């Protein structure tokens, strides 16, 4: 192999691997964001859930999900897997980190009252089956394959509207999917004990730790540059615009949340994330100022959406994952069709209608799949902790230990 090919190939493997590791790190971000936002008695559970979901996701996506989405199986000798220095393997790793976001997103919505294993099970079903199928339509084996005309959604869309559905880094495929899958779960579970009183009066439940919430948010924001930039999926495909648009959208999200909420730390930190969620889809085609606006609108949607969800709809979505990942993700898909256009200084090559159609399709799909899976789980094995378990907290009830053992085991011991 000549030197240039070797360099290019190695560069691609490194590129994917760096992206994968950055997004793997984001899962620590999910864990700490949830840990900080729940009460102390549910902190351990937040940590163990994220880690367990990750582990189960890896196995099911390796064995089932990735083959469904991309038609590639790894059940061959290691030597064969080393084709292109193992590019397929790191490619799998990279895409796994996306898939595994699904249970991590849901986790934040159903926190403090869901049982452990049913939650893991649902995550496994999504990552192994439901998500990869949708992925196959948008990014995977059915996205461009003329021989699968029957389900080639991208083909229909580009046939009718000139361009297919553009989702560079998963505003829709990943985030809105996760957020809308979470909604039925949250509704089926119902609110935490004491969250709403007689006549639906709202009793907000205070969160445990803003420093840990902030740590989670920072980890997510940092890793997000891997999420978006490495979505190029090859080194030579890298685009500085993607990096900058991610930055601008995040900043738009921070600023809007800051101003709308008088510097409320929960909104400001989540506003950064809302901006990043909104930009994924169009990060490669917008102008940086378009990205700023997209992120800002994303944060506005989250701030308003969260308040409506909690106070008017009375939905107890602990981290606000439905407005955050769900609605803002959908906005991201649509925004790509607006700010991606030449008119707004974007790169063009995108259709507003296709964006709208693709974004809504994901909503419908997620609601249907999530509804069915959680309905069955709830009816069969049961989804919610008993009242007593919930009162003791998931940490003691599930893991037999709480987050600060020294404090509860010993009194005042120096």
């Amino acid at each position, binding site marked *: 192999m000549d030197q240039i090919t070797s360099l290019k190939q190695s560069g691609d493997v490194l590129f994917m691997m760096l992206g994968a590791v950055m997004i793997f790190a984001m899962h620590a971000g999910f864990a700490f964001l949830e840990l900080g936002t729940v009460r102390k008695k549910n902190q351990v559970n937040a940590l163990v859930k994220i880690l367990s979901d990750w582990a189960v996701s890896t196995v099911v996506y390796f064995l089932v999900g990735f083959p469904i989405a991309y038609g590639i199986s790894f059940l061959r000798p290691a030597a064969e897997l080393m084709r292109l220095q193992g590019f397929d393997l790191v490619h799998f790793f990279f895409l796994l980190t996306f898939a595994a976001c699904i249970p991590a997103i849901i986790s934040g919505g159903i926190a403090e009252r869901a049982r452990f294993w049913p939650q893991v099970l649902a995550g496994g079903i999504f990552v192994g089956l439901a998500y990869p199928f949708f992925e196959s339509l948008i990014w995977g084996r059915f996205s461009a394959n003329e021989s699968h005309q029957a389900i080639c959604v991208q083909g229909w869309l580009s046939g009718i509207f000139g361009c297919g559905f553009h989702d560079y880094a998963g505003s829709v495929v990943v985030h809105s999917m996760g957020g809308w899958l979470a909604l039925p779960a949250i509704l089926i579970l119902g609110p935490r004990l004491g969250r709403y009183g007689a006549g639906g009066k709202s009793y907000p439940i205070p969160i445990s730790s803003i420093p840990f919430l902030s740590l989670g948010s920072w980890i997510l924001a940092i890793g997000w540059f891997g999420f978006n930039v490495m979505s190029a999926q090859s080194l030579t495909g890298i685009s500085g615009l993607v990096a900058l648009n991610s930055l601008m959208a995040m900043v738009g999200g921070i600023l809007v949340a800051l101003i709308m909420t008088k510097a409320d730390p929960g909104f400001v930190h989540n506003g950064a994330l809302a901006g990043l969620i909104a930009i994924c889809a169009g990060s490669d085609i917008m102008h940086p100022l378009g990205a700023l606006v997209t992120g800002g609108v994303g944060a506005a949607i989250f701030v308003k959406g969260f308040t409506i969800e909690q106070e008017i709809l009375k939905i107890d979505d602990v981290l606000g994952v439905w407005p955050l990942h769900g609605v803002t993700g959908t906005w991201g898909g649509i925004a790509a069709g607006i700010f991606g256009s030449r008119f707004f200084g974007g790169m063009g090559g995108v259709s507003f209608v296709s964006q709208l159609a693709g974004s809504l399709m994901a909503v419908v799909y997620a609601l249907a799949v999530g509804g069915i899976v959680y309905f069955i789980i709830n009816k069969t094995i049961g989804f919610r902790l008993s009242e007593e378990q919930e*009162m003791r907290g998931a940490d003691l009830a599930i893991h*037999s*230990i709480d987050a600060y053992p020294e404090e*509860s*085991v010993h009194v005042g011991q120096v």
Partner: protein
Amino acid sequence: MKKIEAVIKPFKLDEVKDALNEIGIQGITVSEVKGFGRQKGHTELYRGAEYVVDFLPKVKLEIIVGDALVPQVIETVEKSAKTGRIGDGKIFVTEVLEVVRIRTGERGEAAI
């Protein structure tokens, strides 16, 4: 004047406070304590090892009231703190010789 101390289950605090408020009690001092009693503790498990937790989280209320109010306060705490399950806690009454309101220097019942 009397001091009424009540050791109760933590999650009952808001209920008890509201009930006391309704009967006109305007001052309460609260502290986090740990209780050891008939209510069994539990064991926690960490890396295969068992920790015995004998001391359970409780909340202690201290309420200073004039003698006349004592029965009513006791009754109110009793009712609002009761779950009927072991560990509901105790109420203790002691004599208070003098009360001073620091802000005004008032003494006795006026200071409560």
